[in-house]
């Protein structure tokens, strides 16, 4: 037989516990892992990530298979027998013509090309964007418009004129020439990128710096540059990727001793006649892409939030 008294006490206890402070919202809102917001956000992210990763999966799997297995033609199946040989081959022994040292051959050349080209092109374009955004002068917009239209010219069309220009300047075939070419072709997009970013920064800061006596360069280096980290990252992503993966300019405008890694990649991948070694191709591509990828990952921390927070009121 049920005891009504005991029922009462449980009810009271329940009451008391629900009335206790602990169950009331208090302090910071707890972070629930499975909130509907999180489910939507991470769900979307994972679905998107799957789409983006699918080809990578195929590439990695293929690169770990031997050629006979690849001929079987199931691109999604994981390798029956994992082999790292294609990777080794792509890096160290794949032949391009007579030189059988794989991608490693052009690696340092690529570095030698990419570093100065990226730096110079970003520097020039950012200063330019800054001049356009903050120090407008008559006629600047006209040149800028030409530049933007230039962004739409398929750049292969410009090869011959540029060959002529470089030849006349006497720097055809040199590293300097190549850096200049990369700077030229990076300029439209980068200048636009920086110009538009700088216009969106509070103009008051620029004014304050001028009052503080800072000149053109000081404002650029001390005020604008530190406030533009995210856009510099984007510019770097654009340029590092573009230049590192560039093949055409790298061979058209330099001599063989400067040939970048992509020449090897192209040679490994793009042979017209003869046998195609897909596993080596994949490995080579992944290896070549490693440097930009590292740049992406490492530069991530520069995507800081609230870059202009606290700067101006109103």
């Amino acid at each position, binding site marked *: 037989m049920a005891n009504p008294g005991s029922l009462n006490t449980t009810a009271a206890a329940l009451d008391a516990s629900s009335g206790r402070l602990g169950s009331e919202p208090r302090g910071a809102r707890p972070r629930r892992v499975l909130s509907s917001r999180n489910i939507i956000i991470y769900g979307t992210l994972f679905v998107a990530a799957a789409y983006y990763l699918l080809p990578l999966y195929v590439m990695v799997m293929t690169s770990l298979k031997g050629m006979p297995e690849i001929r079987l033609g199931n691109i999604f199946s994981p390798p029956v027998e994992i082999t790292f040989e294609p990777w080794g081959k792509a890096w160290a022994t794949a032949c391009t013509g007579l030189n059988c040292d794989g991608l490693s051959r052009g690696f340092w050349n690529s570095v030698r090309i990419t570093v100065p080209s990226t730096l110079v092109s970003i520097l020039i374009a950012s200063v330019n964007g800054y001049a356009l955004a903050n120090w407008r002068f008559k006629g600047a917009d006209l040149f800028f418009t030409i530049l933007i239209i230039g962004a739409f010219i398929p750049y292969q069309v410009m090869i011959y004129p540029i060959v002529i220009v470089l030849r006349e300047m006497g720097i055809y075939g040199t590293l300097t020439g190549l850096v200049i070419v990369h700077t030229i072709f990076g300029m439209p997009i980068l200048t636009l990128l920086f110009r538009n970013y700088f216009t969106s920064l509070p103009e*008051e*800061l620029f004014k*304050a710096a*001028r009052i*503080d*006596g*800072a000149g053109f360069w000081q404002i650029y280096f001390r005020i604008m540059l530190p*406030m533009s980290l995210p856009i510099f990252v984007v510019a770097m992503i654009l340029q590092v990727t573009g230049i590192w993966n560039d093949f055409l300019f790298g061979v058209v405008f330099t001599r063989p001793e400067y040939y970048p890694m992509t020449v090897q990649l192209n040679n490994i991948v793009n042979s017209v006649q003869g046998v195609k070694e897909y596993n080596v191709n994949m490995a080579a591509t992944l290896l070549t892409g490693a440097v930009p990828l590292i740049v992406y990952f490492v530069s991530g921390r520069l995507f800081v939030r609230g870059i202009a927070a606290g700067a101006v*009121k109103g």
Partner: protein
Amino acid sequence: MSHSVSIKDLSLSFGAVKVLQNLDLDIRDGEFLVLLGSSGCGKSTLLNCIAGLLEPTDGQIFIKDRNVTWEEPKDRGIGMVFQSYALYPQMSVEKNLSFGLQVAKVPKPEIEKRVERAAEILQIGPLLKRKPAELSGGQRQRVAIGRALVRDVDVFLFDEPLSNLDAKLRSELRVEIKRLHQSLNNTMIYVTHDQIEALTLADRIAIMKSGVIQQLDDPMTIYNRPRNLFVAGFIGSPSMNFIRGEIAERGGRRVFHTDGVDFSLDGYDANGTLAAGRKVVLGVRPEHVLLDEDIVGSDEIHEAVVDIEEPMGADNLLWLKHAGHVLGVRTGGTRRYRPGTKVRLGFDMAVASLFDAVTEDRI
């Protein structure tokens, strides 16, 4: 006398909006000029022009008798506190303060000394390592002031520098700014909406309205002899009581006549003659409305009823109803009047003002 800043015929428009109109202003060397004016009248714009941050549509600007109209801000020898602060967000407070000095290649120990001193004055010592985003509104404003204070320039432009500070700090800083001005003896152009600040700091006050300077005079003149209705109404809080009426003659003496009552104009110091029948506006500040026993030497008797009483600590603000007008009166904080009380009313004509009803200028 040499002029520190001299503005000739300055005009500025933003597209169709005319902000400054043929503005002339001469500021003496070492003068402390306060710019007062209603919100949006063009004060900040004027400062920006002086600093060289906005290009005037027309006119010229001289600093130290040098035509600087087209010079770069950095060559003008100015320091400025921006109304919007404009702190460098990526720099610590300390860096914000020292940036201008570093640019000017001031030696390091000197920079440190000045920053330390500014930080002390502004009470932001403990915040030196923070970024602007981590400061409160008032703290940001102090950093903005500090950035100007550390610099050693001829002309300081302060745009509402104390508006977001608490009263205590504000009065402390007011004193510090005054002291700084006296020790450096440089020129200050100071925008404020705080009348106490204006009256205590200024050598001269310029009152602006819609881009035009209405009156440029020393504080007492501005307060007691405002040139026109706008200036009169603008200065003083609570603002001056205005009563429309006309001049009349009563037995050879001029009186101010309104709504059937007369106020004797004895003691009023007119600019010209007071022709009977002229339509005028009488302006009396709340503290110049005399009540009961304060009234001396007057035989008129005007009765009024207390409508509202607003005690404000040191003072007591009364709103009286009298002959169809509402009059604000300021009395001592210890004298209390219940609403409904009847009081006797008089004006201290020696410090009152009469304005032409049409031109609105003082007569």
